[in-house]
């Protein structure tokens, strides 16, 4: 029973959970409104959402809104909501938006498109809330924190993918004298890493007409969590529809650059899947597909999506997508074939779609693993047969002929 949280264009927070009804293929969604939306336009639009499962079985849900306000809610077992901490990002200018939000234990990281990075420590029983600030370049489109919170990466319009050390970014305050420096010695500084920056990508080579290709990273994600801060695998999507894979150990240029993945309006979001070599890519035109990371081929595309996908949330065997057509869809996922280039046998499809009345802007998984495993088991056909086969083998001596005949028949059916 996968469970998700979504935020919408009017600022409402909802909890969406999917469950099986009657047959093993029919899914049903139940939506409950956690925080009602405003009735006064889009000033409270939820721009980013993050959830964290605390050890004491409650969920922390952080949301940032278009007007710069941010709040962390605690959701208790009986879906009671309480506000843990609220603050306002004063550096969010008009026309700018939040590009990143991560909730890690009791620390919230937010980043805006004009580079206002903030780390907020949530109030603990023995400590007051505190926040530390840092500043990054402007024109960002996406900001992500790594799984172990030691590094983060960003990219944007004319901003190359860049990997930073989180601690250094907050401890050293580099850019105070920065604007003057960049103006005067632009050429020299262009390639130099900023204090705290670990690695920065380099633009792809000029095209066959030797024209420079514009840098416009619209979406990015970490692949394969790594413990060494400077060794990361990154994936970026650009506005002209390319998906690029970076390996920070190897090169500053992308190790692979797959062209033409985003068909309309460029890549909207990329998200690492739970299967190996699987990644989900959505464009701004209504395509959502799964990609094989080994060769950059689309292994399948989800059918029946009529609006641009705003947010993708993989959750083990499932994936949930929120889209501009006001639907939240539960999709099934299947990993890419064992060997590159083989035929993809099972393709993911939309299992269930829920109309949510207001455009959902972001959806996140609650990260609860245990609950899903229990409900998934009885679904498949094959595991059941296996169970019967094993049982039969163990006590075939004591049982009569009828049962083993039955078993033979069953085997025949299954083959």
């Amino acid at each position, binding site marked *: 029973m996968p469970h998700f949280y979504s935020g919408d264009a009017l600022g409402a927070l909802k909890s969406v959970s999917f469950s099986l009804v009657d047959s093993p293929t029919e899914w049903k969604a139940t939506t409950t409104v956690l925080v009602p939306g405003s009735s006064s336009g889009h000033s409270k639009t939820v721009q980013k959402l993050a959830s964290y499962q605390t050890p004491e079985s409650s969920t922390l849900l952080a949301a940032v809104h278009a007007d710069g306000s941010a709040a962390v809610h605690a959701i208790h077992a009986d879906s009671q909501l309480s506000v843990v901490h609220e603050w306002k990002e004063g550096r969010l200018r008009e026309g700018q938006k939040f590009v990143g939000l991560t909730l890690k234990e009791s620390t919230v990281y937010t980043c805006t498109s004009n580079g206002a990075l903030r780390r907020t420590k949530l109030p603990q029983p023995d400590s007051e809330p505190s926040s530390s600030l840092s500043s990054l370049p402007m024109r960002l489109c996406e900001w992500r924190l790594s799984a172990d919170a030691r590094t983060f990466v960003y990219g944007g319009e004319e901003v190359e993918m860049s990997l930073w050390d989180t601690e250094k970014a907050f401890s050293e305050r580099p850019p105070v004298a920065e604007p003057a420096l960049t103006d005067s010695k632009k050429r020299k500084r262009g390639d130099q890493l900023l204090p705290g920056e670990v690695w920065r990508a380099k633009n792809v080579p000029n095209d066959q007409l030797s024209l420079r290709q514009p840098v416009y990273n619209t979406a990015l994600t970490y692949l394969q969590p790594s413990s060494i801060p400077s060794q990361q695998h990154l994936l970026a999507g650009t506005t002209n529809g390319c998906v690029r894979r970076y390996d920070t150990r190897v090169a500053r240029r992308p190790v692979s650059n797959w062209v033409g993945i985003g068909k309309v309006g460029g890549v*909207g979001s990329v998200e690492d899947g739970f299967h190996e070599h699987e990644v989900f890519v959505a464009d701004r035109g209504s395509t959502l597909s799964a990609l094989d990371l080994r060769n950059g081929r689309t292994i399948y595309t989800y059918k029946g999506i009529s*609006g641009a996908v705003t947010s993708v949330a993989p959750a083990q065997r499932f994936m949930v997508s929120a889209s501009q057509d006001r639907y939240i869809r539960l999709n099934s996922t299947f990993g890419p074939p064992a060997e590159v280039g083989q035929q993809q046998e099972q393709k993911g499809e939309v299992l269930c779609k829920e109309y949510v009345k207001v455009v959902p802007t972001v959806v996140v998984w609650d990260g609860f693993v245990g609950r899903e495993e229990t409900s998934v088991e009885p679904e498949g056909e094959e595991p059941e047969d296996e169970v019967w086969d094993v049982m039969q083998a163990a006590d075939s001596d004591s049982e009569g002929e009828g049962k083993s005949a039955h078993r033979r028949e069953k085997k025949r059916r299954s083959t």
Partner: protein
Amino acid sequence: MPSSRFEPSSIKNKIKREEIARKQKKEKRQGKLQKRLAQAKAEADDPLIKKKRLAQNVPRTLDNTREYDPSTLTANPDTEAEAGPSTFPQDGDGDAASQPTVQPQDESAADIAADPFAEYFSGVLDPTIPPKVLITTSPKATRLTYDFCDELVGVFPGAEFIRRKKGKGFEMGRIAGWAANRGYSHLVVVNEDMKQPNALTVVHLPEGPTAYFKLTSIQLSQQISGHARATAHFPELVLNGFVTRLGHTVGRLFQTFFPPMPEFQGRQVVTLHNQRDFLFFRRHRYAFRSPEKVALQEIGPRFTLKLRSLKKGLPAVKILGAPSKPLQFEPGEDEDATPTDIPEGAMAVDEQSEHERKEIVPPTEDECIWVWKPELETTRRTFFL
């Protein structure tokens, strides 16, 4: 094979066979006619029978057996005990949220109230000033398209036709940006292909959405026999059969083309009738011949639209040759250390003045709200508007 009925096809003589067959057919026809006449007579005596028959004999059409779409702003007919036919006539002058038969939930109403057309419905605009509409064509248009544009100018009270300029730098998005800065509320671009107008792009200014319609079956006023003359009065508007949330968006988009208050003395009605996702555009003049009877005279033009895509903002303009920009940092770095309420008060003042002269620039990338794909039509009874 002995059949119970005599088959003329079993006769071997051709002349005889034809004769018999003809006779049989005639008998059948006459039988039907007699039945109809008898029914008409019975119904003339007792009008209740006719009423009962009409109530019982509702033909099943694609339209009234359409698949339930959860975005329909009505209750699900499957869960409700009784539901009417699938078309809900909607009066163009009433707000969609305040219809008596259609009761959208709270959230849907809030969503509709927050859409880009909300300003028109809030009543802040002067009802006597028609919205400014800029009509233009695709580059290199020809006669037929210009004729059609002339008709469109006659339909929208605040419309103005400007020829599409030749050369580079006149992309649709850029024109939309200029028009928005000059106070236009809509941009209509008539696209031409094979010397025929074939599509209509409708942009709501200043912040979208952009709708792209397929345009077919154009009949200009001239081609309609017995057509009436149009007058410059603000017409009334009838929007028919827009039931889903997407349909409401399209309906509200068309509603904003016309001044909120019609001039009734003109007795002109513009109709946009949605049937199976085709939008039929008609314009009529009505006349009350007697207190019960109303006569309609068509003014024209006629055309049919079908929604192909709906995009979020203005049409995108790609700037691929832009020079690279260096990394830039937000100036005034230490401002954030101060509490947020001090700059906010100062900002609110100049924000207002800045809003007045804020230049509207087209986006560099499109974002689709809805786009038609063949795979969406899983059955012939799936409709989206």
